[in-house]
């Protein structure tokens, strides 16, 4: 590399950031970012990656430590400061104006002389050609797919002359094919001597795209390694701090019998947009049925429709078959969640929106356990003794970190919130267990705990429906995988024999290139 002797693009020295007096998000972190290099920042959720990057982007201000750009100490007190040093961050959640075109979004907030959209469009094309992006500057954001929106975000920071780029989980919303395209763009930018930091949880992506990996654990800097000198197992051990087995035990389903038969399910959302289009499938007891698809392909609506939370178009049927001697077959369409419960159908549901649907954020663990059982017992008053016991059990079994079981769950970390929710749902002894993104935000250890819990449920002859985003996990965990694309079932494949490529193609099967997702 030509700049071997030049100072690193960014050097962080002893950076510390606290939230309140108890939470230390970053504890004396040292980090170097070099030009012409892609650095992966790796760490479990809550290890302080995003906080650290936010300090570089001017969103937070460090409590201690210093930042050096090209060897000179600087103060970054606002995003405008960050820009003046050539630092641009592409956030997980896009910050674009929907009714504006790509070009308008790119110039938004720039204080240039004159306002010439044609010149802007020309420069955008220039940037696209240089790095291999494909985007139409005149296209409105609301017409764009997720990956196009992301492209606009990246162009936005390049347009402002950023040469230090931070990408916060850019691949979470992309299909495998789109991810490959993003990585090739990143390699082009690397060749142009830009410094890049990518935050991702997917180890195979780390191995694929980065030159160097820096690991954070619980806010502390653990170390960095060259990507070519390491492997996923070593990286996981660094992240977690001890050796972890990355294998999911997948026993063959024992005597699977149909538990839930879904036929011709069509759902429109409140705005009249078709979210599910004639979906039919069967979920068997004793089996994990995976549901794959790009975010927003109808996963949420599918689970909510089964749970009685979505108005369903006429002509559909969802039939529940109980165990022999238990409940007879029961039609779920047209029933409210309470009616489904009263019919004796034990439906456990871990929704995607944990605090907005699964839990009550302002309440503690006890009251959140009460949510499922408060009707039990006669009389006017709610029984809090049983939920309290359950809360203590869940806290112990899943190692929930909380000051007390009455502490508002909203103030727990994402992983702990999820543990509370999953713990409560499994405790119901369900006969159908539906989970949406059950491990999102969980660290590797807890993720595997959850996988094992799901497999345990499957062995208890529960029909498990697992909506997931990580294809590697879907392929390792599920017996069958249903792929959704634009609200339609684009295929149901065998989890043991299918490949990532096959699922990836099914995920985009019905999608017109460039259409809104």
């Amino acid at each position, binding site marked *: 590399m030509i700049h071997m002797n030049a100072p690193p693009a960014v050097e962080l020295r002893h950076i510390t950031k606290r939230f309140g*007096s108890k939470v230390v998000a970053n504890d004396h972190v040292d980090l170097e970012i070099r030009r012409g290099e892609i650095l992966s920042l790796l760490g479990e959720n809550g290890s302080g990656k995003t906080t650290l990057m936010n300090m570089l982007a001017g969103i937070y201000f460090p409590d201690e430590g210093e930042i050096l750009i090209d060897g000179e100490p600087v103060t970054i*007190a606002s995003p405008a400061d960050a820009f003046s*040093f050539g630092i641009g961050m592409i956030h997980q959640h896009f910050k674009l104006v929907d009714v504006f075109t790509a070009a308008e979004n790119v110039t938004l907030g720039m204080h240039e002389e004159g306002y010439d959209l044609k010149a802007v469009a020309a420069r955008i094309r220039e940037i696209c050609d240089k790095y291999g992006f494909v985007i139409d500057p005149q296209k409105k954001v609301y017409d764009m797919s997720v990956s196009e929106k992301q492209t606009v975000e990246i162009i936005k920071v390049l347009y402002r002359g950023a040469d230090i780029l931070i990408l916060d989980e850019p691949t979470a919303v992309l299909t495998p094919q789109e991810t490959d395209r993003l990585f090739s763009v990143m390699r082009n930018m690397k060749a142009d001597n830009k410094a890049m930091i990518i935050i991702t949880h997917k180890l195979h992506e780390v191995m694929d795209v980065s030159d160097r990996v820096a690991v954070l654990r619980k806010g502390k800097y653990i170390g960095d390694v060259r990507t070519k000198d390491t492997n996923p197992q070593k990286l996981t051990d660094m992240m977690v701090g001890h050796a972890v087995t990355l294998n999911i035990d997948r026993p063959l389903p024992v005597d699977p019998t149909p538990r839930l038969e879904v036929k011709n399910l069509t759902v429109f959302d409140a705005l009249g947009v078709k979210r599910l289009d004639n979906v039919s499938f069967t979920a068997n007891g004793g089996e994990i049925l995976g549901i794959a698809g790009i975010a927003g392909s109808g996963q949420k609506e599918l689970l909510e429709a089964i749970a009685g*939370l979505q108005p369903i178009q006429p002509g559909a049927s969802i039939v529940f078959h109980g165990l022999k001697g238990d409940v007879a077959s029961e039609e779920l369409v047209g029933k409210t969640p309470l009616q489904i419960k009263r019919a004796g159908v034990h439906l456990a549901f871990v*929704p995607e929106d944990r605090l907005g649907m699964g839990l009550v954020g302002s*309440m503690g663990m006890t009251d959140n356990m009460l949510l499922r059982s408060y009707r039990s017992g006669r009389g006017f008053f709610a029984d809090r003794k049983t939920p309290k016991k359950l809360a203590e059990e869940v806290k112990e079994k899943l190692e929930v970190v909380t000051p007390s079981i009455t502490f508002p769950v909203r103030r727990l970390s994402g992983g702990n919130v999820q543990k509370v929710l999953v713990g409560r749902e499994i405790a119901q002894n369900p006969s159908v267990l539906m989970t949406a993104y059950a491990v999102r935000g969980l660290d590797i250890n807890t993720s595997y705990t959850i996988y094992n819990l799901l497999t345990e449920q499957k062995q208890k002859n529960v029909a498990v429906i697992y909506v997931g985003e990580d294809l590697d996990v879907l392929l390792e965990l599920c017996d069958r995988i249903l792929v959704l694309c634009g609200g339609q079932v684009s295929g149901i494949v065998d989890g043991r024999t299918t490949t990532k490529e096959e699922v990836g193609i099914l995920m985009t099967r019905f999608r017109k290139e460039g259409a809104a997702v």
Partner: protein
Amino acid sequence: MKEHKSGHEPLLRIVKRDGISRGKAYAIRIAAVLISLLVSGIFIFAVTKLNPAAVYQAMFDGAFGTKRRVWVTIRDTMMLLCIAVGLAPAFKMRFWNIGAEGQVLIGGILTAGIMRAMGNTMSTPLLLIVMACASLICGAVWGMIPGAFKAIWNTNETLFTLMMNYVAIQLTSYCVALWENPFGSNTVGVINQKTQAGWFPALFGQTYGLNVLLVLLLAVGMYVYLKYSKQGFEIAVVGDSENTARYAGISVKWVTIRTMAISGAICGFAGFIAVAGASHTISTSTAGGRGFTAIIVAWLAQFNTFVMILISLLLVFLQKGAIQIASQFNLNDYASDVITGIILFFILGSEFFINYRLVGHGKEGEGK
């Protein structure tokens, strides 16, 4: 190389506290009250050149100077408390019921109407029960109307309940005109002045004893209802997240309507107390803005009905004191409003310091 300019480091940063001991929180609140008294003292002296201590003394006299004043203060406190207790379940459900004013008036109209019409037909205890039931039911209906509209058609409850106030005020004006006594006075006058039929009897030898008893019972009942009952739990869940409520099989519509019925009923009951237990007449000012003041009470108390007792007392004290200093020192009414404003500002502002603290530039972020 790029030119490196250094940005400004922020002078003060706001840091969220992660919990504060109860004692410390109250210390902050008491400090806020003391500072507010100091600031209003400066204001009093700067504007009127009066001795602030004398003014505070006068305020105290206004609220507690004589036995009668003490009881009037207690009566008004109970009235305010009763409405705030009525608002508590609606607000806990995040249903912005600002229609208490109208719900109180409806209860008041019914009470006054029954008192006039049936004063001679039944004994006072029976009459009181009939009037209480009527005001509860009509208050409930008055509350259920916006509740049902919100539940079924998702109308905006803030506007709806506010508009219902004006309907209630017009209804009251109509009744006042209808029941005018003596003719031409444009008031209803004191109803049943001679027979005192339908008036609250003295309890424990105190004119307002029954007011205190009824309202405190309601306050305790509401506390238990919200905290321990199944319905109270449903209200809390709906208030936090309607989606979670639906997920748990709670009928959001039904809970919304039911809770507004309870809220309206208690506010209607407050109208009953106002007429049968205090003024023995009805006018458009029977509610007297308390329906709005009670919102402040409910919020400041974080819907804890026991804390509401203290807050109601404080607000009534400030109001009585303000009237006293206005007349005693010949001050404009606005001067006393300013003092009330300063005190409330500091009390509300102290909540910021209970949730956050400021860290100066260069200091360690420890602060323990």
